[in-house]
């Protein structure tokens, strides 16, 4: 569809191959399909078992279920019943995060849990803010063009159709996007708050352009999903069903097409047949039960995200894979990345009450690519954020205040507005996920993540923090508070052209294993300065297309032969 029609038809074009929006209940937030969901027996060899019901796993399941695949998703966390399980409260939302123990090391350890790891059906998109930018075309060839990072084994153009399709399914609301590959969004931008308005004024005075969106939050109505009510609790799980997550965008349709989501089931090992070298299924434990069960499957897709995916692959040792699945070249867990996410807050004379409206409002990708004048490779994006009281107290503490001074700044909460950055931190082989000596209650070794910033990362972070501080000063902020922090996970099982430097090929298939795929953000060789959710979904959508490429007869033969039918068409 051309740009003209996309603009004219804004808000009225809806996805064709996904009925999730109509399958939701208007009066209840529970997934209507849960009670009538198809159930498979453990010894029933399904076509595909997926580990993780998040952004990647859910999209892959929905797509392939529509093609008739018989699919089981194993999810470590609970099957949510949002009306009862989720609350309009910060501390009360602790259970949305992956809070099982992980060890963090390196020179710059990354705090895991509430900011970057989800647990439960829907994954971490249940508590992401809602920003859904695309990667830029330049993200796919940073090694060739910028001399840093890595080149992807695929190009932006191969994801483009899937970006557009997923944007329709979420649906994404925002202004026309001038950066990267310029494009329009299916829904109009949301109204902005007084707090965001101050930040935009400051940015304009600094010569920085900012645009409203892009967010996966319904503006208008979308099937049975209502308009956003601007209550501001996006990070606590959307009780309205306005914010996009696989729970409302893909799982309803997946369930309607025979997918089973088996919640509270922790995958422990991908089971390998030593005779053929192919996977037989996944061994898992049901929470609260002692036993181990093998779910048999013709193919396995691991979608546990950047910490749990490497952990599962490393724990899946067998005679053929003594160092873990896909780890013959010692690549699993390497090149795990986070984004720098410093935030600065400014103070104004008026009450702004930044807690109203979704935290993601306005963003800029003007600094996304390399600018030699800045003294570092690649760049960052700028986004508004709005911490709730506990988040705000951590911000004030990070600026060095406690006791009476902290209380004073906290009482001033309503006068502040906050702006943040996302730095593209570069992939590094020593930033990696490994197995720690300690074990969890299942006897499975816990993950350890080591992270150390490079000089390029530090220069990028310092530069970007100055840019957003300048924005606040230009907007006449009376006082400024700064917090250095990190956000998002990506990488850890990256795709590439050769097994010496990667874990999977361009079709997400683990090198040396015919029927195991990685279907989450851990395959990304670089991360850009964009929030990863949309890209993870688009990658899963593309993967589904490749996996379903074979004709039905070929598919049946392949399933019998325990070989998965990736399309044989050669890409290049």
């Amino acid at each position, binding site marked *: 569809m051309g740009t003209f029609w996309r603009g004219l038809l804004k808000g009225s074009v809806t996805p064709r191959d996904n009925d999730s929006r109509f399958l939701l209940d208007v009066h209840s937030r529970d997934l209507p399909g849960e009670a009538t969901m198809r159930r498979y027996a453990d010894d029933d060899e399904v076509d595909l078992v997926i580990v993780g019901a998040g952004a990647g796993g859910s999209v892959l399941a929905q797509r392939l279920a529509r093609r008739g695949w018989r699919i089981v998703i194993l999810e470590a966390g609970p099957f949510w019943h949002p*009306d*009862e*399980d989720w*609350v*309009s*409260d*910060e*501390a*009360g939302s*602790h259970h949305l*995060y992956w*809070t099982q*123990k*992980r*060890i*963090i*090391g390196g020179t710059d350890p990354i*705090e895991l*849990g*509430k900011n970057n*790891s989800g647990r439960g059906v829907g994954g971490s998109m249940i508590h992401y803010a809602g920003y859904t930018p695309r990667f830029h075309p330049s993200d796919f060839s940073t090694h060739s063009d910028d001399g840093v990072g890595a080149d992807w084994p695929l190009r932006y153009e191969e994801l483009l159709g899937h970006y557009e399709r997923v944007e329709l399914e979420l649906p994404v609301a925002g202004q026309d996007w001038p950066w990267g590959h310029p494009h329009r969004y299916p829904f109009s931008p949301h*109204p902005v708050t*007084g*707090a965001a*308005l101050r930040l935009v004024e400051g940015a304009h005075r600094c010569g920085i352009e900012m645009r409203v969106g892009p967010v996966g939050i319904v503006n208008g109505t979308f099937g049975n999903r209502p308009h956003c*009510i*601007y*209550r*501001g*609790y996006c990070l606590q799980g959307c*009780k*309205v069903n306005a914010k996009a997550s696989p729970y409302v965008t893909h799982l309803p349709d997946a369930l309607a097409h025979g997918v089973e989501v088996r919640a509270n089931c922790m995958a422990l090992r991908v089971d390998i047949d030593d005779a053929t070298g192919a996977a037989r299924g996944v061994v898992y434990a049901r929470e609260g039960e002692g036993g181990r069960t093998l779910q048999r499957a013709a193919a396995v897709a691991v979608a546990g995200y950047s910490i749990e995916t490497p952990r599962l692959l490393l724990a899946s040792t067998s005679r053929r894979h003594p160092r873990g699945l896909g780890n013959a070249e010692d690549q699993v867990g390497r090149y795990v990345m986070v984004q720098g996410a410093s935030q600065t807050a400014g103070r104004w*004379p*008026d009450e702004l*009450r930044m*807690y*109203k*409206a979704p935290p993601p409002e306005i963003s800029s990708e003007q600094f996304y690519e390399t600018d030699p004048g800045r003294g570092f490779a690649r760049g960052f994006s700028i986004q508004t954020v709005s911490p709730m*009281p*506990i988040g*705000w*107290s*951590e911000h004030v*503490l990070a600026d*060095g*205040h*406690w*006791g009476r*001074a902290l*209380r*004073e*700044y*906290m*009482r*001033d909460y*309503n*006068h502040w507005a906050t702006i943040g950055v996302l730095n593209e931190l570069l992939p590094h082989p020593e930033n990696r996920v490994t197995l720690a000596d300690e074990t969890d209650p299942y006897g499975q070794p816990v993950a350890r993540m080591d992270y150390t910033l490079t000089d390029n990362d530090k220069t990028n972070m310092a530069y970007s923090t100055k840019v957003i501080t300048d924005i606040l000063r230009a907007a006449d902020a*009376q*006082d400024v*508070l700064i917090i250095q922090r990190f956000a998002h996970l990506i990488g850890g099982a990256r795709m590439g052209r050769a097994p010496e430097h990667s874990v999977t090929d361009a079709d997400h298939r683990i090198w040396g294993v015919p029927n195991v795929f990685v279907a989450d953000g851990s395959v990304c060789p670089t991360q850009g300065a964009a929030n990863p959710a949309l890209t993870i979904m688009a990658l899963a959508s593309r993967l589904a297309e490749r996996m379903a490429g074979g004709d039905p007869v070929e598919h049946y033969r392949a399933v019998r032969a325990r070989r998965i039918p990736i399309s044989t068409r050669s890409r290049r």
Partner: protein
Amino acid sequence: MTVDLRSGAHLPKLRPGSQPPPPDWLPRQRRGTTPQMIGRYPDHDVFDAIDTWDEATKKVVLARLEPPGPLRFFSAAEEPALRAFCDTALAQETEPRIPVAETVDAKLADGRLDGYQYAGMPDDRDAWRLVLRGLDHTARQAYRCSFAECDTRRRENIVREFAHGRLVGGPWDELNVPRAWSVVMRAVLSAFYSHPWAWNEIGFGGPAYPRGFLRLGGPGYEGPGVREPFEKPGAVNVDPVREG
């Protein structure tokens, strides 16, 4: 002392010594309980809106007003240092106090941890115990008494050194002190600012489902239209005789 709220003259970083003014410029709280009855929004009480909250949220928030139970994780010997530290870190020297010590204790007793542990640091539960022993160790070295027996000024001196990661000796040598500060403060702040009394103090609207917000203060909203009808503005203490 009078302060013009618009000027921001009360903000610590804009004042000599980075310390706030004494709270006598703040208004007397007319509605709603706040910690130490200090607040900026004298007519604001989040519970005025309780009829607009959903049941699940109401249950979670109201549970925080239950009388705090006895400590389950910390021992009687650790209790004085725990309470003294929570009071000092949050400047809660008088009643009414938000029961921070009890909330932290319950979190640790139930094993509700945060999903990560620094390599080279003990489990959060052990880190807390070491910190309390460390505070007593430092107080004994500096002032010849336990941390809880120190007066407010001396406690603040010790906590200031803790915040800067400068404490050494005894239990501190088993900890990475700056990371230990981050571990304990994370729990303390979460306990304090999850309590509805703290929301009253800072003028936070509280839970907002299913009601939501209509007036976001964006373009086109000037004057009274910038505020929801149920939002009460901030205020300062004005003496009606002198200034009336």
